[in-house]
């Protein structure tokens, strides 16, 4: 079955002439037909356009003929881009390719399918999608994580070879952890955000969700690079990330933050993480306890800054140029208020209200300015820690996947699930989640993810550690 293969192995078979790009697309289409009713990973897919691209794929390119699933907030010309929202689900078609999509195409890849997500990437379970439920392939009663839940479920459920996600507070790493695949959030500014529908612009970053660390490195090679259309895109050269694979980790210093021993951590997750750390030590790494003293500020800081930026970014959904337009409005103010009221779902409204409140007159200093200061402390914590260690290791998520509906009525409890991933976005650092075994919950084997975080722009060391660990796991 081609859909269960890694990019690396498919590329070998393509260049050897054993299979064609058309074979891969047809296999993915078959898997999507077979499994999507159950898993709900894809919101839509277009076999004909993918086959047309497959038939003219340049197999001499490093990603030649490889279909990549796309989170439904990244624009691909001519395709829907719903962001999991009713407001964009009626008739929107992307007028252009996102920068990341242009780069993937330049590497020979074929965008295939639109993957479900929490509405406008707000959530950690994909339950906030207005367009359908996505289930965890390991246990259909449980969530796949989020917000890139469709991307992770498709890769883990062998309906995609690899996929793109976006990560604002953990939205690539956490679903990858909960579904048992690899998810990588690059350094802020590495990958162009041009054509990614903005949630929180100072935190958003596109990255790959894959079956192997090697595939993540390969995709990063084709995603990273300057784009003048994104003013926060970094003018730095990207190295060949695959060169960091297979180097071993002898003598590398691994930091273990003492503040991450929180009470809410699931015992099985703690046990798997401990075993993973012991494995890293046995591979020659040097363990060192470190301190990130402002860890307790991370979630609070994020839930000021991200909603504040979101409330401004989502102001563009005004029912005028694109998106849902209320049929009931008599004047312009009513047109705005009703179009947005009818188009946005509960979590998006909640965050727009929160963001509007913290930016409003009289509260700006108390919340927004204070959160920007707290962000400095969190960033400084990491800068200090990285004077002593090369990477920082922790669980990706404090718990395995929860059951569908379990946290729906408790938004704050859901926010606290992001405690280990959020600080990485606030500091703009690269981070990966790699599978580190399973925990037995109610007779089901639920995956656990290990998060490895590196210095800004040092994706290579993160990949090196992740690959050594993956190889040792077997």
């Amino acid at each position, binding site marked *: 079955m081609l859909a269960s293969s890694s990019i690396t192995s498919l590329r070998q078979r393509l260049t050897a002439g054993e299979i064609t790009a058309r074979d891969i697309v047809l296999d993915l289409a078959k898997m999507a037909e077979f499994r999507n009713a159950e898993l709900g990973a894809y919101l839509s897919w277009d076999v004909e356009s993918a086959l047309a691209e497959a038939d003219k794929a340049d197999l001499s390119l490093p990603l030649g003929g490889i279909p990549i699933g796309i989170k439904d907030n990244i624009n691909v010309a001519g395709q829907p881009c719903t962001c999991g929202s009713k407001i964009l689900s*009626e*008739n*929107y*078609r992307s*007028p252009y390719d996102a920068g990341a999509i242009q780069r993937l195409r330049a590497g020979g890849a074929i965008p295939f399918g639109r993957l479900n997500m929490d509405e406008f990437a707000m959530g950690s379970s994909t339950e906030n999608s207005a367009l359908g439920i996505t289930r965890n392939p390991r246990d259909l009663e449980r969530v796949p994580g989020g917000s890139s839940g469709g991307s992770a479920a498709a890769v883990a459920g062998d309906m995609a070879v690899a996929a793109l996600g976006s990560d604002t507070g953990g939205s690539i790493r956490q679903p990858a952890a909960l579904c048992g695949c690899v998810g990588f959030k690059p*350094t*802020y*500014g590495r990958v162009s955000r041009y054509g990614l529908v903005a949630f929180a612009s*100072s935190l958003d970053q596109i990255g790959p969700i894959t079956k192997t660390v090697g595939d993540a490195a390969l995709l990063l090679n084709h995603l990273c690079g300057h784009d*003048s259309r994104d*003013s*926060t895109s*970094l003018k730095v050269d990207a190295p060949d990330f695959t060169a960091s694979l297979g180097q071993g980790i002898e003598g590398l210093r691994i930091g273990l933050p003492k503040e991450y021993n929180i009470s809410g951590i699931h015992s099985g997750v703690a046990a798997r993480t401990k075993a993973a750390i012991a494995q890293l030590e046995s591979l020659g790494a040097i363990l060192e306890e470190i301190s990130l003293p*402002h860890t*307790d*500020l991370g979630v*609070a800081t994020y*839930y*000021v800054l991200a909603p504040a930026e979101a409330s401004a970014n989502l*102001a563009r959904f005004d*029912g*005028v140029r*694109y998106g849902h*337009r209320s049929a009931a*409005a008599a*004047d*312009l*103010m*009513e*047109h*705005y*208020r*009703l179009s*947005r*009221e009818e188009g946005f779902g509960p979590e998006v*409204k*909640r965050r727009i*209200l*929160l963001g*509007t*409140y913290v930016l*409003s007159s009289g509260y700006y200093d108390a*919340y927004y*300015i*204070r959160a*920007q*200061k*707290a*962000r400095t*402390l969190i*960033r400084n914590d990491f800068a200090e820690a990285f004077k002593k260690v090369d990477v920082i290791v922790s669980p990706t998520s404090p718990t395995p996947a929860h059951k569908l509906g379990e946290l729906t009525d408790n*938004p*704050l409890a859901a*926010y606290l699930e992001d405690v280990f991933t959020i600080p990485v*976005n*606030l*500091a*703009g*650092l690269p981070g990966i989640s790699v599978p580190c075994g399973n925990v037995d919950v109610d007779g089901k084997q639920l995956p656990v993810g290990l998060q490895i975080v590196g210095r*800004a722009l040092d994706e290579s060391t993160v990949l090196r550690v992740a690959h050594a660990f993956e190889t040792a796991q077997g």
Partner: protein
Amino acid sequence: MSAVHQIDIHHVATLARLALTEEEAVRYGAQLDGILTYIDTLTRYDLGDVELTAHAMPVEDVLRPDEARPGFTQEEALANAPKRFADQIQIPKVIE
């Protein structure tokens, strides 16, 4: 007005251009109050002299060369508009 933080949810909803139902106003008011109580964690530290961070990576003003580049055609720009009239976007009347 919500309990701890005295949030005027109707005022916030007007600023946010959301026509909340009364049921939503009550629910979101209470939930925002709970979330803001958690956010008050930020008052645990004296942040007086700390510098602001707007972006994790250094960001500076970026100017692009002032040169003509291809853009959308009129049809492409209008293709997603929910209501059109005579090759323009139509909106409710704004002047009497």
